[in-house]
C-alpha cells in the first residue's frame, strides 16, 4: 500500500502537466480529466485510509522512500513520503474538498476560454499541497510550500487582465515570501542544530525521542518563532494577513480552495507537525497563542465591516484560522481540536464560498451584499446549503462548527491561570462576533427586500439557481458541514485517531465543559440577535453609511495596508532610493570617475603621439636631460 503514497501527489501533478503541455486538444475534456485525477487522488487517499485503519494505532505511520534527492556528504535530503494520522486527515480533506471544488469549477468556469489552464493550476495546487502534507522532511515540505505559493499566485492572478487581480497575486506572493523566508531560516537553523531535515531525527518517532529534546530552549524558541512566521505568511495571520482579502480577486473556486482545503491550512499543519519543537519552547508557543488570539478578533472585526461577500468570508477565514492557531499554540491540549476545527472549517467554509460563488454566478458577478437581498426564493439550493454552512460556522448546537469551536474555547480556558481566562474570553468574544457578521452576511444576502441594481451596461440581474455541477458539490459539502463535527466528536473518535501523532492531555479548565458550551451558545445567540436587530428589522441602505471610526478602519482591513505602507514600504523605498543614490553617485561615480580620469589622461597622453619626429626628439632629449641630471645628483650625494 505504501507505493500508493507517491501516486497521491503524482495524479494531480500529471493532470497539471497534461493540461499545460497538452495544448488545445484537451480544451474539450481537460476539465473533466483534471476532476477525474483529483477524484483518483481522493480514491488513493481513501484506500490508504482504510489501510491505516486496519492497523493498530501505534503503527499507523508509514513512509515511502522514493529516491535520494540531494545526496551530499553531510547533507542528505531524500524524496521520502510519510503518511500518518495527521497527514492522512489532510490528504482526505485536500483531495475530498478539492475534488468537490473541481467539480464545482466545471460549472463555474464553463464560459471562461482559459478553463483548461485554470484546471491545470487547480491540479498543481492540489499536488503541491499534497506534497506539503506527505513530505517526510522539512526540505521536501518546503518544496511543496513553495509550490503552493506558486499555484496560489497563478490562481489569484488568473484573471490577469484585471490590474487588481494581477496586483493581488503579486501581493499574495510577496507577503508569502516573508513567511517563506521564515521557513527557510527555520530549516537552516534545524540543519545547523540537528544536522538533518527529516521529521524523525528532529521530532522523534515511534517512541524514540528526536533531536529536539537535546537542543537548548533558546534555539528551539528561535526555530519556533521562524516557523510561526512561516505559518503567519501562509495562513494569513497577523501581521502577514494583508494578502488574504485581496486574494478574493481570483475566481471564487480558488477562494474556496485556498480558504478551505489548501493554502491557509498549511500554517496550522506546520505548527501541528512541529509540535515537538513548540512543546519544548514555551515562549514560541506563547507567541503562537497571541498571534492566534489577535488574528481571531482581527479577522472577525474586518468581517463585520465588509460589504463584499467574499471579503466578509475572507475575514471570517482569517478569524477561524486564528482559532486553529490559538488551539495549536495551546500545546497538546489543543492540537487535535485545531485539526478538527480545520477539517470542519474546510467543509463549511468551502460550502460558504461555493454558495457565495453561486450567488455571484446568478447575480452577474455582483459581490456587494448591499445589492443582494431576498435571494432565498430564487436560489433555494444555494440558500439551504449556505444556511447550513452558516449554522455550522457560528457553532449552532449539533452542527460541525459547534463541536470543534466549543472544544477550542474549552481548551483555551483550560490553559489555566490569567492566560487561560484572557484567551478563553477572546475566543468567546470571537464566537459572538462570528455569529454577528455571519448573520449579517446571511440576512443581507438571502432575506429582506430586493436591492438588485442593473450593472454598468444596464443589465438587470436575473437571479437563478446554478447548474447541477455547482449545486451537487455544495450539497455534499453541506452534509459535511452538518455531520462531520458530530462524527468526529462521537466517542472522541477524532481525538483518539490523532493522539499518537500530536499527543493529547486534558487541561484543568476552571469552568465545567457544560458551562463553556452554554456560554458559547449564549454568545452566539447574542451575536445573531444583535445582527438581526441591526440588519433584519430595518431596511438596509444600498449606499453604506459612514459608520464609526472602527467600521471605517475595518473596511480598510483595520488599516493593515496603510500600516504596511507607512512602516515597511516607505522606509524600504527610502532605503532603496538612498542605496540607489549611493550606488549610482557614489560607487558608479567612483568607478566611472576612475574610468573617465584614465580615459581623459589617455586622451591627453595620446596627443603626445602626434607623429612629429621633432616632438619625439624633444621627449628623448628631455629624458636624457633627466637621466643625466639624476646621475649627477646621485654622484654628488
Amino acid at each position, binding site marked *: 500500500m505504501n507505493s500508493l503514497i507517491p501516486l497521491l501527489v503524482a495524479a494531480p501533478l500529471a493532470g497539471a502537466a497534461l493540461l499545460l503541455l497538452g495544448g488545445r486538444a484537451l480544451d474539450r475534456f481537460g476539465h473533466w480529466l483534471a476532476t477525474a485525477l483529483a477524484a483518483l487522488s481522493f480514491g488513493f487517499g481513501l484506500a490508504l485510509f482504510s489501510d491505516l485503519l486496519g492497523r493498530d494505532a501505534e503503527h499507523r505511520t508509514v513512509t515511502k522512500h522514493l529516491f535520494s534527492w540531494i545526496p551530499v556528504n553531510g547533507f542528505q535530503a531524500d524524496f521520502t513520503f510519510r503518511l500518518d494520522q495527521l497527514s492522512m486527515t489532510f490528504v482526505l480533506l485536500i483531495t475530498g474538498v478539492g475534488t468537490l471544488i473541481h467539480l464545482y469549477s466545471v460549472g463555474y468556469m464553463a464560459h471562461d476560454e482559459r478553463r483548461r489552464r485554470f484546471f491545470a493550476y487547480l491540479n498543481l495546487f492540489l499536488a503541491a499541497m499534497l506534497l506539503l502534507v506527505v513530505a517526510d522532511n522539512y526540505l521536501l515540505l518546503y518544496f511543496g510550500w513553495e509550490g503552493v505559493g506558486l499555484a496560489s499566485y497563478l490562481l489569484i492572478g488568473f484573471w490577469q487582465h484585471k490590474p487588481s487581480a494581477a496586483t493581488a497575486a503579486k501581493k499574495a506572493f510577496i507577503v508569502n515570501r516573508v513567511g517563506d523566508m521564515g521557513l527557510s531560516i527555520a530549516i537552516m537553523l534545524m540543519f545547523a542544530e540537528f544536522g538533518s531535515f527529516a521529521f524523525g531525527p528532529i521530532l522523534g518517532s515511534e517512541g524514540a525521542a528526536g533531536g529536539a529534546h537535546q537542543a537548548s530552549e533558546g534555539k528551539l524558541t528561535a526555530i519556533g518563532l521562524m516557523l510561526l512566521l512561516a505559518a503567519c505568511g501562509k495562513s494569513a495571520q497577523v501581521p502577514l494577513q494583508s494578502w488574504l482579502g485581496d486574494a478574493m480577486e481570483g475566481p471564487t473556486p480558488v477562494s474556496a480552495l485556498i480558504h478551505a482545503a489548501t493554502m491557509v491550512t498549511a500554517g496550522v499543519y506546520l505548527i501541528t507537525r512541529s509540535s515537538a519543537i513548540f512543546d519544548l519552547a514555551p515562549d514560541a508557543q506563547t507567541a503562537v497563542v497571541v498571534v492566534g488570539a489577535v488574528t481571531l478578533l482581527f479577522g472577525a472585526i474586518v468581517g463585520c465591516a465588509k460589504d463584499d461577500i467574499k471579503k466578509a468570508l475572507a475575514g471570517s477565514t482569517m478569524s477561524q484560522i486564528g482559532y486553529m492557531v490559538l488551539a495549536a499554540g495551546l500545546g497538546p491540549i489543543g492540537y487535535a481540536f485545531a485539526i478538527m476545527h480545520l477539517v470542519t472549517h474546510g467543509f463549511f467554509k468551502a460550502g460558504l464560498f461555493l454558495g457565495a460563488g453561486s450567488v455571484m454566478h446568478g447575480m452577474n458577478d455582483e459581490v456587494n451584499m448591499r445589492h443582494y437581498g431576498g435571494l432565498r426564493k430564487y436560489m433555494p439550493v444555494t440558500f439551504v446549503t449556505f444556511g447550513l454552512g452558516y449554522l455550522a460556522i457560528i457553532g449552532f448546537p449539533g452542527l460541525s462548527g459547534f463541536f470543534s469551536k466549543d472544544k477550542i474555547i474549552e481548551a483555551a480556558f483550560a490553559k489555566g491561570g490569567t492566560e487561560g481566562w484572557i484567551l478563553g474570553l477572546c475566543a468567546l468574544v470571537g464566537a459572538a462576533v462570528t455569529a454577528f457578521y455571519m448573520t449579517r452576511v446571511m440576512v443581507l444576502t438571502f432575506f429582506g427586500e430586493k436591492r438588485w441594481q442593473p450593472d454598468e451596461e444596464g443589465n438587470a440581474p436575473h437571479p437563478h439557481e446554478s447548474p447541477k455541477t455547482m449545486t451537487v458539490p455544495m450539497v455534499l459539502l453541506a452534509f459535511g458541514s452538518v455531520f462531520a463535527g458530530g462524527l468526529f466528536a462521537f466517542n472522541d473518535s477524532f481525538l483518539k485517531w490523532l493522539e499518537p501523532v500530536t499527543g493529547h492531555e486534558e487541561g484543568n479548565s476552571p469552568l465545567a465543559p457544560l458551562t463553556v458550551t452554554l456560554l458559547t451558545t449564549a454568545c452566539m445567540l447574542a451575536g445573531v440577535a444583535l445582527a438581526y436587530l441591526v440588519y433584519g428589522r430595518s431596511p438596509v441602505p444600498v449606499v453604506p453609511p459612514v459608520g464609526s471610526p472602527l467600521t471605517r478602519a475595518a473596511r480598510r482591513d483595520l488599516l493593515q495596508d496603510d500600516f504596511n505602507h507607512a512602516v515597511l514600504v516607505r522606509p524600504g523605498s527610502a532605503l532603496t532610493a538612498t542605496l540607489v543614490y549611493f550606488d549610482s553617485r557614489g560607487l558608479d561615480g567612483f568607478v566611472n570617475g576612475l574610468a573617465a580620469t584614465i580615459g581623459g589622461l589617455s586622451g591627453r597622453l*595620446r596627443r603626445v*603621439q*602626434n*607623429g612629429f*619626429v*621633432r616632438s619625439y626628439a624633444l621627449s628623448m*632629449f628631455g629624458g636624457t636631460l633627466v637621466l643625466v641630471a639624476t646621475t649627477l645628483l646621485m654622484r654628488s650625494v
Partner: protein
Amino acid sequence: MNPVNYLYLAALLFTIGAAGVLIRRNAIVLFMCVELMLNASNLALVTFSRLHGTLDGQIIAFFTMVVAAAEVVVGLAIIVSIFRTRHSASVDDSNLMKL
C-alpha cells in the same frame, strides 16, 4: 689655459646641435645638426685622449667618424627618397605615425 676649455666648447656645440635638431624642420639641416653633435663629441674624445695621455680617445673619435659617414650616407638616401615621393624635405610633413 686649461684644456678643459675644449670640453666646454664641446658641450656648447653639442647643446647647440641638439637645440637645432629640435628647432629646424628641414631634414637636411636636421642632419647637419646631428653631425655637429657628433663632431662635438669627437672634440670631447680628442680632449679626453689628451688629458689621459692615451690614444684610445682618438681611436673612438675615428670610429665615430666612420659611423657618422655611414649614417650620413643612409640618412641622405632616405631624405632623397622621401623627397621624391612627397616633394618636401620637411620632417613635419611626414607625420603619419600618429594616433
